[in-house]
């Protein structure tokens, strides 16, 4: 169990009480740290890994406080957003690198390298150099090397963000299995809410250095603590308007263009359509409702064009009031 306490991701510029938080990451679970760019995800990872960072805080692993950079570095494995591998070592030597540092026997190293390379699908590439691999393969290598160390904490800092989206989806499914099998504390940062649902057992929402909510992804989705928390888990954004001094927010997927069956009293909104986009499977209708930009997400294609007036419906239960 990894506990972080008294964490302040922006010391000096943001020192007030809400900026300081604590969090517990459980072993055998994937914790997705979700936040926009510059929200402090990387700083949190670097703090836990004992790397140079402006973030401050205490890190405890299984009840033991990890002070000092080197003790923390012993405990973690890390995968960076950029594909970082030793360019002068082959794939096999790269994976073996942390094992060499621990002075394992050659037979043990060989066995571990083959095992990990097989699990990550790079076993046919063992003799190549990193620059001879594709981006996806390079990141698989980086993940293999991080796992080779059998560290008690595995940190993955937006590992798939530089890959194209088909590769991402394929790797994500594999990663879920692989990371669960590792049985360690896994911290996976991302700015994409889909990762929270597809990978995360737990999600921690960060906003501008603040922890704004944590819990199981669906729980956070259904009961957002704040508008910002709701926004972070929404794709592409949250629709909102002020009603009698209350902020009413509803997700794009909960707004309908047709009457909702079995709902006697839906809320109604009038929208002026400004743009319409579709990929055949899904459509996004952008428009304005009372001075606010709204998006409607619905399946299939719609006979809608810019300039149309639409009546939107939403169940009262889907509208969150703050």
């Amino acid at each position, binding site marked *: 169990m990894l506990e972080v306490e008294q964490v302040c991701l922006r010391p000096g510029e943001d020192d007030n009480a809400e900026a300081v938080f604590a969090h517990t990451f459980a072993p055998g679970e994937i914790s997705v740290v979700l936040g926009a760019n510059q929200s402090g995800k990387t700083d949190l990872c670097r703090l836990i*890994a004992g*790397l*140079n960072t402006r973030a401050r805080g205490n890190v405890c692993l299984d009840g033991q406080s990890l002070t000092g*950079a*080197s003790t923390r*570095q*012993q405990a*973690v*494995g*890390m995968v*960076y957003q*950029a594909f*970082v591998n*030793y*360019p*002068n*070592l082959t794939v096999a030597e790269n994976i073996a*690198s*942390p094992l060499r*540092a*621990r002075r394992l026997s050659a037979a043990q190293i060989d066995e571990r390298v083959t095992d990990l390379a097989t699990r990550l699908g790079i076993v046919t590439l063992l003799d190549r150099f990193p620059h001879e691999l594709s981006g996806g393969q390079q990141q698989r290598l980086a993940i293999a*090397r991080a796992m080779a*160390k059998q560290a008690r904490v595995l940190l993955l800092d937006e590992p798939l963000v530089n890959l194209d989206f088909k590769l991402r989806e394929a790797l994500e499914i594999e990663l879920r299995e692989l990371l669960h099998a590792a049985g360690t504390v896994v911290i996976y940062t991302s700015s994409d809410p889909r990762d929270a649902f597809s990978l995360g057992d737990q999600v921690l929402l960060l906003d501008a250095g603040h922890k704004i909510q944590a819990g199981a992804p669906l729980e956070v989705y259904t009961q957002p603590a704040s508008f910002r928390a709701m926004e972070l888990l929404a794709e592409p954004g949250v629709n909102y308007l002020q009603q009698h001094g209350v902020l009413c927010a509803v997700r794009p997927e909960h707004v309908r263009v047709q009457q909702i069956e079995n709902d006697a009293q839906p809320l109604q909104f009038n929208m002026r359509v400004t743009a319409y986009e579709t990929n055949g499977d899904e459509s996004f209708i952008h428009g304005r409702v009372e001075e606010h930009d709204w998006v409607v997400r619905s399946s299939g294609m719609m006979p809608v064009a810019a300039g149309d007036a639409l009546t939107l419906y939403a169940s009262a239960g889907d509208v969150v009031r703050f």
Partner: protein
Amino acid sequence: MKPSASRIILWVYGLYLLLPLYWLLSMALRNNADIVGEFSVFPAAPTLANFQEIFANPVWYEAFLNSLTYVTLNTLISLSVAIPAAYVFSRYRFLGDKQLFFWLLTNRMAPPAVFLLPFFQLYSAIGLFDTPLAVALAHCLFTVPLSVWILEGFFSAVPTELDEMARIDGHSFPYFFFRIFLPINRGAIGVTLFFCFMFSWVELLLARTLTGAETKPIAVVMTRTVSASGLDWGVLAAAGVLTVLPGVLVVWFVRKDLVKGFALGRVS
């Protein structure tokens, strides 16, 4: 295939550049009578006598050895000082780092002649005069800043994540530096070596002033031969050929990284 105009221009320019080199080689392969005799493009009776003279005469081959000694010393000192310095400049922020880095470059702006007198007087006073180390150290004043400047460009292009990763993997700093970082930058070090070598090899003013009878460098011997027993064109040309050779060899080894080196590593 019809040769294009640009290709022809390229060939003509190439020939123009190679002409003096060819003429040097051609002179080195003739005897004096042939050189001052009738004009001919190819040597009438090619001879290796000039080269034999150089390898047989201690004045000549010792001068070559003298030059090679201080050039090698200079290159070794420059690299062993500049590699750690460039690493620090590329990895750490400290008070006045940018100013110090720029000040290094300004050292290159001063002409060597400025330092002639202080070096001469200082080295004479402390007994360094007329040793290979004297020239090597004097040349370091120019090659160390240049080396730091080139290497820093290359080193900065290596992501710092690599340093961190090696630490997380459990490697010590010396292991990372010598087994990973330096091998990655092999090309950069080759290019730097080339620049140090060439500067020290062709520099005449300091080398001549700081050496006496014991450690006379090749460039000095070449200029003095003019007044010795008339003018031995052939031997002089042969010495010239041998002086060009080390540079050619070094260029051959670092040719792949040379362009990047001229851009001081700031090419991705």
